[in-house]
């Protein structure tokens, strides 16, 4: 990580960039936050470890409006989001210098806590330079050990690969973390009866508190004003007054990001109620792949998205292939 910090300081010093968009150390060992570092001194608080799951690409919408060039750190999966934002003219390529950083799988503190670990004061073993096998969690109730894999975010188990799709330079090594198929869960749900499906999603969605965290964190939800905040459409919603509104919100959100979602998994990561929101997006990704051919949003910044494209022989609605 020191290599990374040195390089960032170098780029700040030679004027290539005027600020760094990275992660700032937290105070509990697992809670770093996205941060704009404006000087080399500030970088003393910089961190890049297993808990830096947050996808920084969306912050570049803001970053693109700032004076001068911003250095942004992108993990392999974040580069897809960045490309997609670039395609939609939401970020400006010439306002950014991209260091693609390696990734050994990102951690989910909820998964650690779900193992009954409470009162955490620090976590060791999450360093990017380390081997990333085991975490040592210090708590007020004693020390606990957790296998790194068991604490990894769901998305890292079905990682799209550790290749950066856009960058100016690359730093730090990655480890392959993929050990599952990302459509398994979608398949399982597709196999349920309509009653079971309804029951499953009703239960999950009933937890939704309409906090909009999923939307606001989503790099594809980059609208200046969301339809659900706007009165233009008579579609404004603020609370889950009725179960329908939760379904409506999540269907429409999934639909709006269909063909644009890079499956970065941020929606599920941030949901305070642990709703597996990525399942909606994955469903669409799976359908699009099956119906219209393999398509990975954000693989590049040019290809037309599947919903703004067509072929003469597309599947009819309701037909299955």
């Amino acid at each position, binding site marked *: 990580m020191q290599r990374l910090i040195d390089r960032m300081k170098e780029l700040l010093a030679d004027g290539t960039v005027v600020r760094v968009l990275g992660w700032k150390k937290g105070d509990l060992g697992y809670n*770093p936050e996205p941060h704009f570092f404006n000087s080399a001194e500030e970088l003393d608080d910089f961190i890049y470890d297993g808990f830096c799951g947050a996808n920084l690409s969306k912050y570049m919408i803001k970053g693109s409006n700032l004076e001068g060039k911003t250095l942004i750190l992108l993990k392999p999966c974040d580069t897809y989001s960045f490309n997609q934002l670039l395609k939609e003219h939401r970020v400006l390529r010439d306002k950014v210098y991209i260091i693609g950083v390696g990734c050994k799988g990102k951690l989910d503190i909820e998964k650690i806590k779900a193992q009954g670990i409470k009162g955490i004061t620090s976590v060791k073993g999450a360093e990017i330079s380390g081997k990333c096998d085991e975490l040592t969690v210090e708590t007020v109730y004693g020390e606990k050990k957790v296998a790194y894999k068991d604490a990894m975010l769901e998305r890292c188990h079905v990682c799209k690969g550790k290749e950066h799709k856009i960058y100016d330079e690359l730093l730090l090594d990655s480890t392959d973390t993929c050990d599952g198929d990302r459509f398994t869960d979608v398949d399982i749900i597709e196999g349920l009866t309509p009653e079971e499906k309804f029951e499953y999603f009703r239960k999950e969605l009933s937890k939704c508190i309409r906090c909009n965290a999923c939307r606001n*964190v989503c790099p594809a939800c980059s609208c200046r004003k969301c339809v659900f905040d706007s009165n233009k459409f008579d579609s404004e919603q603020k609370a889950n007054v009725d179960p329908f509104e939760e379904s409506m919100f999540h269907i429409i959100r999934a639909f709006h990001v269909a063909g644009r979602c890079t499956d970065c998994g941020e929606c599920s990561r941030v949901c305070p109620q642990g709703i597996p929101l990525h399942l909606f997006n994955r469903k669409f990704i799976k359908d699009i792949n099956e119906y219209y051919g393999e398509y990975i949003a954000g693989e590049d910044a040019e290809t037309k998205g599947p919903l703004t494209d067509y072929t003469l022989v597309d599947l009819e609605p309701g037909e299955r292939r």
Partner: protein
Amino acid sequence: MKKFLKSELTALLNAISEKERVYLPVSNAGQTNYDIYNENSKVDLDTLKTVKSAKEVFFPQSETLYTVTKVDKKIKITQEELEKEEFVLFGVRGCDVKGIEVLDKVFLSEPVDSFYKARREHGVIVSFACNEPEESCFCKAFGIDCAEPEGDVTIYDCGEYYFWNAKTEKGEALTEKLASFLSDADEAPVKEKQQEIRKITGLLPYMNISLDSWHGEATSEKFDSPVWADIYKPCIGCGTCTFICPTCQCYDLKDYETKNGIQRYRCWDSCMYSDFTMMAHGNNRTSQMQRFRQRFMHKLVYFPANNDGMYSCVGCGRCVDKCPASTNIIKVIKAFEKEEGVK
């Protein structure tokens, strides 16, 4: 002091719920939130913090206030009925009990909110001492003792027994109703447990955070600080912190046209939202920095200024746990500490 066997809990809950609604932490699809008890409920008193706080029992996320119907071309208004049945709110932690006290300041002072008032009058609060406080907890900073929470009744979890301590008239009345389950008990195990809890409390990183510089008179000094411009940046403008907060009380009024008239309802709103307090001329606060500042200024400065020094934060730490960008009130306080320390 009374006590009952932990194994008797279900029977006790069944007994209450025969006559009255019981709200308590229930696990649903992997998350624990307050819900109405029934025999199939997966009661979860072990999870320290429900995702949403207990405030929604008195101040639901959305509720209809009145309905407007049209009879020919005339308009008729029907007010929604107020709460008139007794209910029990069971298993509330100390911070959430305090949160209700904060809400009382808002809704029970003039003009009184009749919907809230009716619910408060009909609800009995059974609180729960925290055996295992967590790293994000900082109730102590607000003078809350999680080993000895307020409430009509307080329950302490000690070994195979729940100890039961009625503290108010309402609590006594409930105790009487449940007399068959409760036996007299010695305070000693409770005291012992409380010692244990307080020891842990001392070890937790946030519990002793200082609020000295935060008070009703700090308005201009804090408002104009350059710190805000830096610390707000990670904020993504979602409403997670507000909606899980036990004290946030802002709401919006909206209309919904149903087949049988137009319902006017209120629903929680978040000062973090870009369309909060949207008016014809636009928004009061035009940047996320201003919105971010508003939330913490309100919790730690404006509210105490108007409520005899009472903060509208109770240190439950939910926002610390749940913020998507890992920014929170603790980070704000610490940032100011650093800035002011530098000065």
